[in-house]
């Protein structure tokens, strides 16, 4: 149990330290590239708060979110969900001189880590099973995202964008790929939120 906890804290530390890395890589940003995120649903908790940075010529948005799943939804204790997420914005048209901007299509990937004693990082680390007994991690999920967003920036004000996204995770995907009868909507999850910059 002690080794699981140590691993858990290492992972939390890594997740929290992550945003510092890309920030340093961009030595002279043209404009403060940092943003704050409020995210709802989508598999990362009832609500998740966090932030990130715009890098790669405003095309990539790595961010960290800390989500909360209240007791009423978890059925056990309230659970914290840590998310490491990157969004790719291939096309960000502006509408002339207007203050509106959009990203009609966004692509993303994320890793989530769910806290709670009932979750294991690997089956072997829980001490209850031989290696390979359960091949997946119940604490960590990998996900893919497809979204859209619309933003507005009043002159001299904060740039605010609203977004929504559909996602799926590794285990839902494995289920769908091995069963013809599982339809696409059955493995999709809807989430959304706001980013302020």
């Amino acid at each position, binding site marked *: 149990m002690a080794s699981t906890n140590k691993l858990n804290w290492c992972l939390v530390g890594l997740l929290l330290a992550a945003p510092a890395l890309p920030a340093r890589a961009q030595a002279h940003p043209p404009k403060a590239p940092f943003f704050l995120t409020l995210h709802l*649903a*989508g*598999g*990362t*908790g*009832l609500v998740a708060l966090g932030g990130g940075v715009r890098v790669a010529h405003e095309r990539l948005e790595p961010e960290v979110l800390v989500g909360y*799943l209240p007791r*009423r*939804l*978890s*059925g*056990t204790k309230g*659970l914290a*969900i840590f998310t490491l997420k990157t969004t790719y914005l291939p096309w960000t048209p502006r509408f002339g001189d207007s203050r509106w901007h959009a990203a009609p299509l966004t692509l993303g990937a994320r890793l989530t880590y*769910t806290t*709670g004693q*009932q*979750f294991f990082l690997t089956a072997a680390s829980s*001490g*209850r*099973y031989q290696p390979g007994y*359960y091949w*997946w991690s*119940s*604490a960590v*999920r990998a996900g893919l995202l497809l979204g859209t967003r619309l933003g507005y920036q009043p002159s001299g004000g904060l740039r605010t964008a609203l977004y929504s996204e*559909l996602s799926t*995770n590794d*285990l*839902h995907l*494995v*289920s769908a790929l*091995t*069963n*013809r*009868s*599982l339809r696409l*909507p*059955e*493995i*999709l*999850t*809807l989430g959304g939120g706001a980013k302020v910059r």
Partner: protein
Amino acid sequence: MLHEFPACLPWLRDLLRSGLQLLAGGLLLGSCQLIEYSPNQAYVPVRERGQTARNLQLLGAATGTDTVRFVFVGDTQRFYDETEAFVTSVNQQRGIDFVLVAGDLSDFGLTREFQWVNRRLAALRPPYLTVIGNHDLVGNGRAIYQHVYGPLNYTFDYAGTRFILLDTNGREDGFGGRVPDLPWLRRQLADTAGARRTVVVSHVPPTDEDFDPALVSGYTAALRADPRLVFHLSGHVHRFTAGQPFHDGVSYLTTYSLKKRRYHILTVWGARQFRLETVAYGLDK
């Protein structure tokens, strides 16, 4: 814009309007099903909660018969295509009182998996009952199972037979000596009111290495001591086995997983009489 349609085409207007309403309703309903806060959340819509109680209510009480006839199958565990074929096959059977699924409904213990399985098994004409499997306990699975189905240990009576269903997934408890709950099992076996036969159902059979080794002798002794016991039923091993592995007159049966495209029909009557039929389905696929 709809009011601009020519007056001679009111039916077209109505058609469009109802089409739009359907689309809006579909999107709303669809997006409700799409909203999930965690793949491990125990929360499911009200209509998907408490399936054990719901199915027991559907089962009701047997009237004027001493015979119970039920389908016995094992692990549905990520075999959704096979589960649909299974439902089609069972619905062609006549005279089935209920369907018994011997655990591992899910593969990863995720909320959606329980919903996928329940939505498919809900199409069964007879009610269906479950016992929890080790895969159902992974992650937050215990809480999810409790929400979607109900208690991990429970009993019901039908046609003079007491069915005792319990969690025997000892490895998931770290072999802590608490699973299966032997005091609870002994209490159920000791309560002889209203039933002349007993059937005990669990996911992991006591012959398996995932059964708490410290509890095997207590478990088998409790079963041995019950003169009304017809047999002990399990899943987990994904194949049919039948025998008396403890050489004590107690019969232990295990059944196929859905992957095997076979299931059993068990008929129980009289003083511990039973018949076992095997049904194969959809093997041409």
